């Protein structure tokens, strides 16, 4: 290690011409782009744009066909009320899907938590507030089980949650003995359980606390995902877990946290579910998992992880809400809703694939 080696540090023969060449390296000057490439670039950097455009377009189209009956404060807020639960469960689903996972057990966790909230109050006589806490604890526990199986046992999320979906749902039926707690009973003895179903009016607009909860939850998660290190790490994990680990992200604990958080959010959805239907029913919310995945996919969040905005999920849920109400007001067969939503799902995934090509 002597300084005499300095003489050796000479560029190689063929590199001598470099002194005459341009000195800038790896320039980022963008080449000329077509309008289509510009659009692709724009959609790549603003993932919630497509669902927002579709949402606005569907509002305009249904408004033009149906008129004032659709474009009223009442109808608009009715849509919000109808999507509140899907929106909340969809928020949980968004977190999991951003990590390149999937959670098929969200609906089961939601129902199980709501049943725990109800049964703990009415079977064991716990104060409703404590029962609600127990419901959240059960949601968190379910999420923890998913999280450990996915991140520590390294099992595929689809398989894990396919299993726990059945397990949580069966637990729900076994524990509740298939018993429904009636709305009047809850209203009389434990109104706290129906809190998120309570409404207030601003003019003709009718809001439930469930709607407020959904909006606040999505806003909070949007902030966390985009403006905190935790959110960036979540995207990095979904993007490329190996790279995330090598560049200093604690992948395993993060994944467990994400599934626990998903479970907690599902418990919140379970609480809102009681408000929405009034009663505590072990058979409610059967399709929440499929509906939440639909909202996420239509919302432009990539099932491959790492890309997409939670706002897109909210727009996705609203699109479904607008279609259902719009088509109902027109008076068509409700199957048309499913048909159109099905087409939208496929379209959304096709657009996602196209946008991802910007990388190539």
């Amino acid at each position, binding site marked *: *290690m002597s300084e005499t080696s300095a003489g050796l540090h000479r560029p190689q023969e063929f590199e001598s011409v*470099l002194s005459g060449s341009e000195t*800038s390296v790896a320039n*980022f000057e963008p080449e000329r782009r077509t309008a289509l490439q510009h659009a692709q670039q724009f959609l790549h950097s603003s993932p919630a744009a497509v669902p927002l455009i579709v949402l606005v377009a569907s509002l305009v189209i249904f408004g033009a066909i149906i008129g004032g009956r659709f474009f009223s404060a009442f109808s608009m807020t009715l849509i919000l009320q109808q999507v509140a639960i899907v929106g909340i469960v969809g928020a949980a689903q968004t977190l999991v899907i951003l990590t390149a996972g999937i959670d098929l057990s969200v609906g089961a966790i939601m129902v199980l938590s709501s049943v725990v909230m109800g049964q703990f109050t009415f079977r064991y006589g716990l104060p409703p507030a404590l029962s609600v806490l127990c419901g959240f604890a059960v949601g968190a526990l379910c999420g923890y089980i998913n999280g450990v199986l996915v991140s520590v046992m390294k099992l595929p999320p689809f398989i894990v949650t396919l299993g726990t979906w059945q397990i949580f749902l069966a637990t729900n039926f076994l524990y509740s003995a298939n018993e429904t707690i009636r709305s009047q009973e809850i209203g009389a003895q434990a109104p706290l359980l129906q809190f998120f179903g309570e409404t207030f009016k601003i003019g003709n607009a009718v809001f439930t606390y469930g709607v407020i909860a959904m909006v606040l939850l999505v806003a909070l998660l949007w902030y966390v995902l985009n403006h905190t290190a935790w959110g*960036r790490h979540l995207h990095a994990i979904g993007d490329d877990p190996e790279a995330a680990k090598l560049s200093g992200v*604690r992948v395993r604990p993060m994944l467990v946290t994400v599934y626990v958080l998903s479970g907690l959010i599902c418990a919140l959805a379970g609480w809102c579910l009681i408000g929405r239907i009034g009663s505590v029913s072990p058979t409610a919310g059967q399709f929440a998992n499929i509906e939440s995945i639909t909202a996420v996919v239509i919302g432009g969040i990539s099932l491959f992880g790492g890309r997409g905005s939670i706002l897109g999920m909210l727009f996705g849920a609203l699109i479904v809400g607008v279609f259902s109400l719009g088509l109902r007001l027109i008076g068509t067969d409700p199957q048309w809703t499913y048909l159109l939503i099905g087409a939208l799902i496929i379209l959304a995934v096709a657009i996602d694939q196209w946008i991802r090509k910007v990388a190539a």
Partner: protein
Amino acid sequence: MSQILHETGVKPLLSARGLVKRYGRVTALDHADFDLYPGEILAVIGDNGAGKSSLIKAISGATIPDEGEIRLGDQVVNFKSPMEARDAGIETVYQNLALSPALSIADNMFLGREIRKPGVLGQWFRMLDRSAMERQARAKLTELGLMTIQNIGQAVETLSGGQRQGVAVARAAAFGSRVVIMDEPTAALGVKESRRVLELIQDVKKRGLPIVLISHNMPHVFEVADRIHIHRLGRRLCVVDPKQISMSDAVALMTGATQPPTDALAA
């Protein structure tokens, strides 16, 4: 062909003894030793699959060796994650670059060491200071002369392979405080860009940091290295002085065509 002996008293900054790493029936590291001295450029060469990447992954906390001991300075270290090695000042450019494609250049450079806004926003709301990170990322990339950035907020996946490699190299060079390790940093680079990275390696050395350079490019290795660690079949075969050995002799050792003289076996 002789090895380089360090004057007594100079201790290695980073060293490893008897590292073993097995993947099922494959032994990637078979009692490998390693020594990096202060302020030097150490090249590591070896055939494909010789275990070079496995060696630096063990040293940088990316994998945990089954056996063996690693020392940083006077202390025995047991890194359980790349984060811990980074906190100890060891910065690594991995062969696969370890960048998150969908995140921006700035987000990637600061992944795992984000800057938060000052005051209540950062303290309580954990808000990232995007503009500070973008400013520093741009400053670091330009200061290193590595590239002129058009849009520091653009996703890494929209960059070419060479540009990505540039970002990874710049990240390591900018944040390394004790050791910088580069696993084939010029593999995807053009002639001009490779030259910049070689200059960058010299710059880092001038800052007093030792560098580990893994490369298959013999002219580059012989140009910049102070010592060459030859890796073969999962272990260090010998360490040679590039001023006293020819490229073809080094290649002969690396491929097993010749055996090292006994005096070169220990470094």
